């Protein structure tokens, strides 16, 4: 049944009149037009649909809109602030840490969640933390390098 769901999306309040059991991924991509969040597998295996919920990386294909009621959701479109790229975005560019770019938004947001939990991760910890995000083009080594660069740039902050 349609219901009003309220949450914060990329720092803006959102009130949606939708069935509360609808999948967050499709509501983001369709109703809200935020197509930076990608569909890759629909079952939480690939990480292409990763978003931040209260700053934690979560898979939007496995969440319903009621799961984010009253929470803060950040998609790739909302990661940079005041026209500035986030250090992770900057580092992904500098390291050429992408090819087709389809997994990239999910990678960056998964890395954000990782750095929030562990601001100065070792290479081994980055690998473990990113293990369940898939990249078919094989940009893995550069993604690891980019995350290390971003961690250094963020100096443990943000």
């Amino acid at each position: 049944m349609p219901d009003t769901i309220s949450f914060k999306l990329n720092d803006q309040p959102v009130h949606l009149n939708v069935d509360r059991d609808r999948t967050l991924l499709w509501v983001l991509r369709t109703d809200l037009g935020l197509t930076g969040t990608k569909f890759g597998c629909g079952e939480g295996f690939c990480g292409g649909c990763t978003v931040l919920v209260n700053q934690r990386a979560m898979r939007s294909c496995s969440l319903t809109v009621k799961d984010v009621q009253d929470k803060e959701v950040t998609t790739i479109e909302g990661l940079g602030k005041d026209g500035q790229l986030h250090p992770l975005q900057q580092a992904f560019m500098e390291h050429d840490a992408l090819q087709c770019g389809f997994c990239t938004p999910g990678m960056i947001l998964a890395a954000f969640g990782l750095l929030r939990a562990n601001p100065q991760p070792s290479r081994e910890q980055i690998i473990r933390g990113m293990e369940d995000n898939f990249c078919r083009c094989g940009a893995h080594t550069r993604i690891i390098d980019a995350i290390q660069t971003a961690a250094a740039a963020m100096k443990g902050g943000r």
Partner: protein
Amino acid sequence: MNPNLDPALDFQAGPESAVSALASRRDFLKRVGGGVIVFVTLGDWAFAQEAAQEAARPVSVRPGLPTDFNAFLRIGEDGRVTCFTGKIEMGQGPITSLPQMVAEELEVPLDSVDIIMGDTDLCPFDMGTWGSMTTRFFGPALRAAAAEAKAVLLELGSESLKVPVTQLTAQDGVIFDRQDNGRRITYGQLTKGQKIERHLTVKPSLKDVSQFKISGKPMLRRDAREKVTGKAQFAGDIRLPGMLYAKILRPPAHGAKLQSVDTAAARAVAGIQVVQEGDLVAVLHEQPDAAEKALEKIKAGFDVPPATVDDRTIFEHLLRVAPAPKVVTQGGDLAQGQAQAARSFETTYLNSYVAHAAIETHAALARIEGGKATVWVSTQNPFGAREEIARAIGFAIENVRVITPFVGGGFGGKTFNLQAVEAARLAKATGRPVQVMWSREEEFFHDTFRPAAVVKIRSGIDAAGKMAFWDYSVFCAGDRGAPHFYTIPHHRTAASGTFQGPPGLHPFGVGAWRAPGNNTNSFARESQIELMAAAAGIDPVEYRLQHLTDPRMIRVLKAAAERFGWTPAVSPSRRGYGVACGIDAGSYVATIAEAAVNTEQGTVQVKRVVCAQEMGVVINPAGAKIQMEGCITMGLGYALAEEVHFKGGAILDTNFDTYSLPRFSWVPKIESVLVEANDIPPQGGGEPAIVVMGAVVANAIADATGARLLQLPMTPDRIKAALKKV
């Protein structure tokens, strides 16, 4: 893709622009307005080379040779340069490397070059983006267009400045008099009020590598900002007013026939439209998730043919029904070689079906308005898609426009365009724009897998360990990469079928998969070479060098060995070092890997991979290295884990729970070495480094353990089984 394009030509922009108002390329050319436009007809050179490479492809993806022109670029009155290409960007990097080539030959800054890709109304015909051919064969055409454009501009500059052409220099989009630097004029000023069209049919002189200022220099990806901010649009990201999302009824197995269908329950869902048109049964809704739920309400009965093969019995089946092998190359006399052999080796190598598994599933959005269809498609083959769509909806080809946004990975899997045909048929049936985006299950089901294949090799060495004979037959993979490149006095290489068939051979669709055929062939060849080196008691690098005469291969092998820090030892040395060489798309590759094997669990960790590649002149060394890294990482998948499970026409893998892709923890330390060869024209870079990955890992496992793996992927069960035979 083209943020700085002339607003009067707002063609690549979103759906609200005037995109479909352009009825044809001719109309577009009328709209181009002023400037210098250079058309290149590849005629009998570069294009013919692509055509020759394409001989193995079915006619449906070879829509015939173009009659007008194949490439062009325009220099506008604002000084911006736009190149138009039917090639597409799927991660492999032409969005950066092609503008590099243009900027180099035209003498303009790289950031003044825009590129329009894969739009069938705006771009010249192209056969498709595959085969590592963009740089090799399209590149020279584009460079030629740029060189010609520069010549035209110099003529205009000469008239305008009243200075002979020979006294002028073009640099950074400006022409100046070498004797008087103050006498100068910009390209933009020169093109103002002009409408100059040049048609180029002969090969102009291109810059020598030694003059390169932009080409040959490492460049970061030009599309990175769009891709890290989520602004980059893929086919499934395009939104149109009033659009519907479709989900389509799929059979449980290939070959299944629809017997009955009851759509009543789906029709009862608010907002759902059902289309039933022959074999196409679809539900459509303004929300994709609602369409997906409604699809579950359709009751359908299928007649499923009995399964006669599965992933275990497929190899016997293939050998039983494959056509007789045809000789690809031969020399000497096999009987004589056998007589000279002191030891012989007879080996059968097996390779499984592998999925493309791009993270972006097939997607398309179709709009039909005023008798014209516009279809945004994730495809490697926009012109092929246009033809498929036109045929399916009964439109003339000029009334179908295919636009290719960014493609989220292809690897050969986005050659055919069923999803675009489905979207177009449904748009026609409903009168509304329709998007089709496949689920992961549909993606596995409709994939054209890399074919399962068998290679049989009989070979022998003489008393001194030298290779005496080589009798090689490949079944069902095709002959790309089948010819060996070693000195073997008596040899024959034969191939049965191609990577695509013949039809009916495989229980489902198969097709090109990154370096089609070559992964299978290089796995078998390089495993067999290693096996003989071990039997001869000779270090595998040394053994190869003893049998090589091609200086390009010798160079890459030595470069890889040097970077790796190779020290000679006879396998199994217990160090876990493997080596393998290959040739693909005109490029030479030698790779050395270090692997650790857990003999209890049968698992392998590849710790380090050194890959030396010689690809002629390198346009973008950064891009080339990224492709090598991508090849190495992707290659670990088919080497160690990737394998399609099936029973008859039923595909048992529906998602990434049973079909594993390479993950972060798999990735070794990768060192890519580009071996300079500026005397050789640019060769392919998207595929070569992947072809050796099966062999190099197999050889590393053999070196670590003495166990020889004869089947890909080398799963823990297969490794444990091989260890038992040691």
